[in-house]
């Protein structure tokens, strides 16, 4: 009798296994959470030490226009750590690339979903997938051997600069924006189209006045995702932008972005020095910006959810 009670009171083998399996999978999940927290903790602690330990003022850093951390300014006794040229460079290539890419992305997705659903999608779908799969260094290499000489021929100068960076990023983020826009357009209910056509709208009127309007939040999200990708892209941009930490004066003069300065510099500085700390502050800005892009996507999702 005792044995049976014992058996009944005990957890079965199945339950036991379930507990273990649950614990193991939860550990894996927690590990990802820890990684995210660790990334933030490490990059923030490094990045903030520029301001706290080295005593650099935030204003000088964000709005200073001269970047040369290894040289000290004789007047203020502080190194030149104005990060504005890179911040402007990053935002400029990001916005320009997004502005150029958006009409192409919307046009292509309209072709795939509204105008030539069968033929258009059959040709464009694999093209978009192919573009997504191409590694960023290959984009950089193409930029270096095709885009830069092309710009050089047109504008004179070296060919390196914001314009080349924009063109390379445009091609890189085009598939991201397009595939997300296609998904949004596909999720517009069919009866929207039918009602528009039924009251006598032409196809373009239906697209312009109904479909694009109702898909606006989704398209915005797609653009923000594309911009986030452009903002964080490092090597392809670094290869074509010229890497001169100067305030950009024109689109075809060498400039630099946060990522390009980071990739060039972090290996050449000593850990813990000011020169190194300011680079980590640039990394911190990148980190915070990707957070901002995330928040924007969420805000769009909340405000513009299709009813």
């Amino acid at each position, binding site marked *: 009798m005792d044995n049976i009670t014992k058996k009944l009171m005990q957890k079965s083998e*199945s*339950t036991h*296994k379930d507990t273990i*399996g*649950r614990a*193991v*999978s*939860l550990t*894996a*999940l927690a590990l*990802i*959470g820890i*990684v*995210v*927290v660790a*990334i933030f903790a*490490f*990059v923030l602690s*490094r990045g903030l030490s520029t301001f706290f330990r080295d005593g650099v003022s935030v204003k000088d850093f964000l709005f200073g226009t001269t970047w040369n951390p290894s040289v000290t300014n004789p007047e203020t006794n502080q190194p030149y750590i104005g990060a504005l040229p890179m911040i402007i460079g990053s935002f400029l290539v990001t916005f320009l690339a997004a502005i150029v890419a958006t009409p*192409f992305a919307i046009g*292509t997705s*309209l*072709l795939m979903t509204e*105008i030539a659903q069968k033929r*258009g999608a059959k*040709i*464009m779908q694999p*093209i978009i997938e*192919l573009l997504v*799969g*191409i*590694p*960023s*260094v*290959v984009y*950089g*290499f193409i930029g270096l*051997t*095709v885009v830069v000489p092309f710009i050089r021929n047109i504008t004179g100068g070296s060919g390196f600069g914001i314009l080349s960076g924009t063109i390379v990023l445009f*091609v890189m983020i085009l598939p991201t924006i*397009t595939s997300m826009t296609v998904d949004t357009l596909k999720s517009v209910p069919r009866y929207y189209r039918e009602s528009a056509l039924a009251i006598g709208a*032409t196809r*373009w*009127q239906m*697209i312009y006045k109904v479909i694009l309007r109702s898909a606006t939040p989704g398209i915005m999200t797609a653009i923000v995702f594309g911009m986030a990708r452009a*903002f*964080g892209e*490092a*090597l392809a941009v670094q*290869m074509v932008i010229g890497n001169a930490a100067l305030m950009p004066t024109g689109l075809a003069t060498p400039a630099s972005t946060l*990522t390009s300065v*980071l*990739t060039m510099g*972090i*290996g050449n500085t000593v*850990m813990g020095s000011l020169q190194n700390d300011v680079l980590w502050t640039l*990394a911190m800005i*990148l980190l915070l910006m*990707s957070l901002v892009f*995330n928040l924007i996507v969420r805000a769009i999702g909340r405000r513009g959810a299709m009813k």
Partner: protein
Amino acid sequence: MNAKTADKIATGVIYAISGIVALILFAMLAFILVQGVPHLSWHFLTSPARAFEAGGGIGIQLFNSFYLLILAMLISFPIALGAAIYLNEYAQKNHFTAIIRTAIEILSSLPSVVVGLFGFLLFVVQFKLGFSILSGAIALTLFNLPLLTRSIETSLAQIPDLQREAGAALGLSRWETVLHVILPAAVPSIVTGVVLSAGRVFGEAAALIYTAGQSAPALDFSDWNPFNISSPLNPMRPAETLAVHIWKINSEGIMPDVSAVSAGASAVLIIVVLLFNFSARKLGMKLYKKLTSA
């Protein structure tokens, strides 16, 4: 303007735009293949790179890329699988789950250069692993985890709840149901996701330049003892991958045949990634036929 004229113009514009997009891609692919494929030879694919003279190959870099890819997948797959199982099978709708989901989303949107720098700070400097395959593989894991987790979770979510109920009705615990019912049914789409993410990892460079390093020391391909420094299997040696190699020789510009080598290497990179993408679907279909009664 007449509505019908506007419609015609708009249609024309949309066709033109799509045509340009298609043209850009074809031009790019054609450029890489036309420039790169003529350089591909057995010698190019197997011999070591040369820094100052023409005629070097990409043998070591190619090996490093695959080795790093395999190591990164070995580390990231179990973690991603566990996390996805918890998220899809166990997690309740509460604050903890919401926070973790947000964390995964944030991790997936971090620029890969930031992930690489974190790997540099923690593994290369703090844990003193140095520029090594191991540091690189961990950095690639961090880069890969959120995307892989999400794709596995989607695969699991596609399995209808009927299967779970059937498992429960047979008296299986939830874990046993997952292990013996849900996972086998989800294998094809999990495999597709894994191979697709492998393509992405294979071409990644920004996360690697400060973790796996930018040098490719000579390897002795007859020595397979992982503890020897010149052994290809040694995880503690610095290892430049193919993608990093393309970036490095182009930014240094001291190799005389740099554009030939980078064109060849780019062609290899693209061909491998395309093969991954192509085989992902084929493999998934095949496994599906084999594992299920469908």
